[in-house]
């Protein structure tokens, strides 16, 4: 592991391991408690494989009651708990702790209710993202947020990370598509928020739970809204001689009042990598390639395809192809969807970054990244959710070359700091986890972070849920609760009053 510092394991918990395992077996009988090194191995890391740590013990509950009892036990004994879905997090959100319980939610794999009339599905958190769509597809419905990991990642993990996908400009992130949750607090208490209805009628607790990276509670049930699958979807491939021209095209499409179902950009290196990997038929002479997908009623899609083509032509695009069949549309996407494995073929290892920038800053950010690439001596390709400014630079390195991971990490951090510098943010959809934890002060000052942590304190005062994630420094809640007030007069006699 590189320089990452996690909370020091508590010696007394390590010493009490056998007793803790036995107590957990009382709660989750049979194979639900795993304590051998070999069997715990698969849980030692998530999608960020550079960080690994065996947990104290793995627990795989299958009922909300068991989750409640495990958490109450952990709370009573001061044991940290790390919730885990499928472990595909790209920010190290599910990285275990040496003295902590790794709480795997994989056995919560049932869909509990499908309600086409109200357009909702109630699922257990271990159901995969794609599993929800599959369950409703024969009725022509789908669940909109579609992370590329959707075959594997779970809806519970999606709630944890507030995951997105290529369609979220038009259809929103997880948070815009979740209607309710059942959640267990660290005390073992069970709460329900939302349901099949909209909004909360008061404070929007659900709004902070989505994206809370397992730090506020363990989600044991999720209600999502489902949508009718669009009647038609067609994609247009537009190749440009420069990323500036491609960026201008994206801006012009939005300025024309068009919100495409998906709008992705790939740079030259990624176009070539994808083409070499699976021969998607991409033009190789372009500096930037756009995939613009229009979806909806057929008449509308055909109308908008025409407008997008006009805009592209007006801005000097070198290639312009609109899909004329479903097979062709899928082929246009195949290269983009295979971006990660394609890079995997040209480089032994890579880091996937996830900053968001105001779109207009794209040319600046791309040219600065090129300079960084030279400085660090590492290649970097770019795929970009162009509609919403979410960049995914892929930094190529070789873990077997000493020092190269550190260099790649430093390169990645520089990119994210650049995103913040131009008015953007550290993470658009992958979460802070451990990966961006120490960069949080570049976006938030002490007071900002203290307010975020006060929310954490209301849910989990002893910081037992997923400690070491998100917050660079976790202050003691008692310390944060104190308020320093100095008695005095209304300090500005000149403030207007009526």
């Amino acid at each position, binding site marked *: 592991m590189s320089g990452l510092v996690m909370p020091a394991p508590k010696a007394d918990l390590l010493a009490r391991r056998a007793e803790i395992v036995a107590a957990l077996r009382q709660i989750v009988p049979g194979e639900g408690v795993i304590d051998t090194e070999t069997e715990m191995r698969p849980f030692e890391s998530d999608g960020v494989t550079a960080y690994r740590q065996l947990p104290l013990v793995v627990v795989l509950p299958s009922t909300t009651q068991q989750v409640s009892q495990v958490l109450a036990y952990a709370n009573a004994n001061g044991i940290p708990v790390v919730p885990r879905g499928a472990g595909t997090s790209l920010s190290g959100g599910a990285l275990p702790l040496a003295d902590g319980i790794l709480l795997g939610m994989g056995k919560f794999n049932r869909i509990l209710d499908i309600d086409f009339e109200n357009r909702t599905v109630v699922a257990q958190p271990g159901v995969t993202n794609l599993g929800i769509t599959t369950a409703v597809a024969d009725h022509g419905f789908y669940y909109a947020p579609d992370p590329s990991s959707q075959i594997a990642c779970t809806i519970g993990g999606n709630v944890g990370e507030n995951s997105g996908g290529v369609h979220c400009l038009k259809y929103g992130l997880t948070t815009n598509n979740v209607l309710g949750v059942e959640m267990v607090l660290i005390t073992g208490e069970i709460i329900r928020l939302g349901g099949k209805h909209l909004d909360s009628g*008061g404070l929007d607790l659900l709004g902070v739970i989505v994206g809370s990276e397992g730090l506020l509670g363990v989600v044991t049930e999720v209600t999502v809204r489902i949508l009718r699958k669009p009647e038609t979807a067609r994609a247009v491939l537009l190749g440009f001689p420069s990323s500036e021209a491609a960026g201008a095209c994206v801006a012009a499409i939005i300025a024309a009042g068009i919100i495409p179902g998906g709008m992705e950009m790939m740079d030259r290196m990624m176009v070539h990598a994808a083409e070499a990997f699976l021969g998607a038929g991409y033009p190789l002479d372009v500096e930037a390639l756009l995939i613009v997908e229009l979806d909806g009623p057929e008449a509308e899609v055909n109308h908008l395809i025409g407008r997008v083509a006009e805009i592209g032509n007006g801005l000097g695009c070198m290639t312009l192809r609109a899909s004329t069949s479903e097979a062709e549309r899928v082929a246009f996407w195949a290269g983009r969807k295979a971006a990660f494995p394609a890079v995997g073929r040209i480089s032994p290892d890579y880091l996937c970054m996830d900053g968001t920038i105001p779109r207009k800053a794209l040319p600046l950010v791309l040219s600065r990244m090129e300079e960084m690439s030279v400085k660090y001596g590492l290649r970097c390709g770019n795929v970009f959710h162009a509609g919403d400014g979410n960049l995914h630079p892929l930094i190529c390195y070789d873990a077997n070359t000493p020092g190269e991971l550190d260099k790649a990490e430093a390169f990645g951090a520089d990119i994210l700091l650049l995103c913040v510098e131009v008015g953007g943010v550290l993470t658009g959809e992958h979460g802070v986890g451990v990966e961006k934890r120490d960069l949080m002060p570049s976006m938030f000052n002490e007071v900002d972070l203290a307010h975020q942590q006060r929310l954490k304190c209301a849910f989990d005062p002893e910081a037992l849920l997923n400690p070491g994630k998100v917050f660079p420094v976790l202050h003691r809640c008692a310390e944060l609760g104190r308020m320093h007030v100095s008695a005095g007069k209304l300090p500005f006699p000149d403030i207007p009053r009526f």
Partner: protein
Amino acid sequence: MSAATAAMSGDRLCPRDEADVAETVRWAASEGRTLDVAGRRSKAALGRAIQTDFTLELAALSGVTLYEPEELVLSARAGTPVAEIAALVAGANQMMAFEPMDFGPLLGQKAGAGTLGGLLACNLAGPRRPSAGAARDHALGIRAVSGRGEVFKAGGRVVKNVTGYDLPRGLAGSHGTFAAFTEITIKVLPRPETVETLLILGLDDAAAAGAMSAAVGSYYDVSGAAHVPGDVAQTLPALAGIGRAVTALRLEGVQPSILHRRGKLEALLRARGELAFLDADASRAFWLAIRDVLPFAASGGGEVGGEVGGEVGGATARAERDARVIWRVSVAPMAGARIGAAVRTVGGRCFYDWAGGLVWIEMPCTEPQASLVRQAVSAAGGGHATLIRAAAPVRAAQEVFQPLDAITGALVRRMKSGFDPAGVLSPGRMYAGM
């Protein structure tokens, strides 16, 4: 004027900028004073009736600070009138897609008086809520002053961001009880080119729910689905001459698409009842009436012009308003009709938005209305009911917001004491003693 006499007169403190807000709150916390957080006081009658030492009026924190149409983003100080923002973005063919309602007409206030801060603090939405979301879904970032008198920010100015807890969303609907927003960044979206509305006439509530479900669940991008029962439809100028219950389905977008979808929807729904249409102008008038609950507007409410913050009309108007209370209920769309049936047993009237899931109720101010409404909600599978308009004593005597269960209530109280340990900000506005 000393603080003590100011407290007696319940007067208004009008900070000029964020630093003033922070200083005022710090002072109040140290002196044990309470502040009712307000924009231009257009929604002062919303929530539990409370008494505070001062009103903290943020109207002077006004002005759009950033608007980049091509980035779909706008920032403005919290006291900026929503109407000003709406006009600005309309100039670039954009909109706040969540269609924030204007409470003015309903509460007996001027129209167009609300501010951006109030919009997020009340998590406003409109008929487009099911497809486009509410204020919560469009808030990208905030600057705010918590009850500790500290300025903090959360979120950002880009449309996709998961850095840190989503406090802009979490504080949506907090009615000023956790923090006073000072600046808010929202997402804006292109405005549809045109609009039309398909009507089905004469359906009862249950049949309407079925028709709306079929329409909203179809391919044809219905961006509004409302049902107005016959007794209410008769009072709505936008439906003059129809004289029957109206189930309305809104189609927005480019003309060729609307034509196509209208044809398809007609075929889908023809068997359910007689069909009719509203053109673009009539559609806009109709959906505005639904959004702002004009069928139940207070007499005189919604007038334009004059000073903001005062109520419209005199004692008669108020008495008329107070005789019939307004409830807002959110349940699963197919369950709405059961709420309507329950309130009719006591002489109430209602209409439905959000494909049946949002029920606006007007009913006589007689006991025990809260338990009647809330029992109906829980029997219908759960949701929430808010008492939107009633005389102050009525709003002081019962839960205005959906009561929280014991565990969630304790959680929210812990949050409140983290953000506002001295209980400075609008104490009691949402829940007694908080």
